[in-house]
């Protein structure tokens, strides 16, 4: 008998060891997420993928799928909470999409659009954060960092460099660079590193790339992230066998 659970009333099969999020994506069911990446494992920090099982909230990227579970995901209440999370992420940083080179390629922006976020609702905090332009080929704009730690994990797992960490607590936490001076220039980072590719926003970027991709040809210009992600995930599943 197939292992399966119910996601918003529809059956989703799963394999042993899969999380709810992995199983849902494999079945062509999108659950919004920011800190999770298929190659970086679960993290459970952004809470965007939160689902409700038996009245209790769980992050679906960390929660193993279990046979017979009834999982509520795209309910109006949960989508409202997701939108509120997005709004808080936006006001907690300084996200100026109109002049950001990541615009159109930005997972944060695309997810906000997908969730129907049309304003920031909460008062902007306008935090003062340090920008690091010291490296010749990479820059770090902490204004755009949402502290998802994808760069932290990618640097450790794939680049083998441990360039990044997070210090401080709560909304005062910031991305720290592991180097004697605390600057990228003294770190081992290189523009081709996975840590840079893993950034879902424009916080960590290769320098002098800018706006080379015309508007209309950027990643999320043609399709919403919910559609694009499923196709990408399906292709990677096939690729991985």
């Amino acid at each position, binding site marked *: 008998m197939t292992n399966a659970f119910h996601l918003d009333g529809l059956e989703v099969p799963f394999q042993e060891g899969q999380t709810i999020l992995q199983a849902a994506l494999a079945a062509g069911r999108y659950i919004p997420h920011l800190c999770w990446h298929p190659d970086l494992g679960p993290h459970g920090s952004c809470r965007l993928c939160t689902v409700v099982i038996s009245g209790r909230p769980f992050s679906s990227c960390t929660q193993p799928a279990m046979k017979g579970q009834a999982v509520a995901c795209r309910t109006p209440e949960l989508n409202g909470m997701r939108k509120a999370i997005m709004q808080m992420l936006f006001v907690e940083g300084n996200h*100026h999409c*109109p*002049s*950001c*080179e990541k615009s159109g390629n930005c997972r944060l922006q695309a997810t906000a659009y997908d969730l129907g976020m049309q304003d920031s609702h909460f008062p902007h905090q306008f935090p003062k954060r340090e*920008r690091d*332009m*010291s490296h*010749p080929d990479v*820059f770090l704009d902490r204004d755009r960092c949402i502290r998802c730690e994808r760069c932290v994990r990618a640097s450790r797992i794939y680049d083998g460099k441990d360039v990044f960490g997070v210090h401080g607590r709560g909304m005062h936490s910031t991305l720290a660079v592991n180097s004697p001076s605390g600057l990228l220039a003294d770190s081992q980072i290189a523009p081709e590193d996975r840590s840079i590719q893993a950034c879902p926003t424009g916080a960590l970027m290769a*320098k*002098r*790339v*800018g*706006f*080379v*991709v*015309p*508007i*209309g040809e950027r990643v999320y210009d043609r399709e919403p992230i919910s559609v694009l992600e499923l196709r990408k995930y399906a292709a990677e599943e096939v690729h991985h066998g």
Partner: protein
Amino acid sequence: MSPTATRHLETASNPEALNRIVIEPLTRVEGHGKVTLLLDEDNRVQQARLHIVEFRGFEKFIQGRPYWEVPVLVQRLCGICPVSHHLAASKAVDMLVGARTLTPPAEKLRRLLHYGQTLQSHALHFFHLSSPDLLFGFGSEVARRNIVGVIQAFPEVALQGVKLRKYGQEVIRILSGKRVHGVLAIPGGVNKALAPADRDLLRKDIDQIVAWSKGAVDIARRLFEDNLAVSEAFGSFRSNFLSLATPDGAFELYDGGLRARNAEGAAIFDHVDCVHYLRYLHEEVKSWSYMKFPFIVSLGNEEGWYRVGPLARLNNADRMPTPLAEAERRAFMAMGHGGPVHATLAYHWARMVEMLYAAEAIRELLDDPDLQGPDLVTRGERALMGIGVIEAPRGTLFHHYRVDEHDAVVKANLIVSTTHNNTAMNTAVRNVAATYLDGKELTEGLLNHIEVAIRAYDPCLSCATHAVGRMPLQVELVDAGGNLLQRLVKDADGRCSGA
């Protein structure tokens, strides 16, 4: 009227004893500004000033940003002419990456974008913003004096205006991805070529656009000539003029050397490489406006102020490169009898000649195979300073950036078109106030005369107030009887003092 004849109206000697009339907000201009008039008991004008009350701060908040972000960020200065800021900043950034000379496809694609911008901005100004005054009269019924009134009374003219603007916006959308705030220029070039299908789409209507533009020149000319005495005298004065020009002295919107001529049309300077602009132009700060007052260094701040924009460009050009516009330029310049044309209201006519030029230039470019690329970007030796100058629809636009060795902007200086015209607009306001308002019972129609004079310059008040940090500011606490209780003054260096 001589510009000095009303200079005493810039500052009244006894402002506390005068009645204050405020026109706020100024309508049918871009951005927020106001005019204050101080009148004595007999309604004689004692002081007339144009104030810009917006506060933007772009020069400050682009500090620390990566230089390649600047052309996209600073275009948010404006919603009407963002392309001008995008291109001026891009030209400055070209210098930073050692690419002052672009590949032919890149330069032509930028030019096409710029001409589209000129077309749509000039159409917007003439048809939407100014035609109500010109068609109905400056003091006509206020309820009708707007674009809706024009649509009702002159539907064909209004429709042409709307479609001319739409075409310019289509050029911008196709090239930059959006009608407003798109992206085409990148450091050292552009990010895409013009697809053949898009070229064909634009070609389809361009002959009609040229014909309508020619018709618009005819309308502007007729409106000027039908009431020649008023047209020549209204808010008028003699001045110097500044613009770009090609090496052989022709009209130029995208690139060229700086050319300044005096009120008689004699050269003050010519063929000046834009990177040396600071040797020729300085800015003065006055306590009562957020907008600075530029002047030509060799003439000093009293005599060195000048005008920019369509009137200046036509006065400074020896010829226009396209045939229809050149014929119209000659007809226009005949008014000057061998010298420059000085009438404030001649700006409208000159603006329509420029729109015709833009339409013709677009038509020529659409036949150029270079627009299909493929060589779109070039690079050279990195530099730490970049200066880009362009003729925006409203006049000469300067973008000047200094970056550090880590690619971050450390200093920016923008002199926008409207700022150059600051003294000119104030002079026009004073002249109109002295001529039409002095000693009269003020009505809305009379006050609109002031706005008509300002509108002729097509000011963009949003663009003109981009500075922050060095802004002089004066705050006065006045009691109900008009007595000054306290004054706090912040000077241009940021120091505050009480009085």
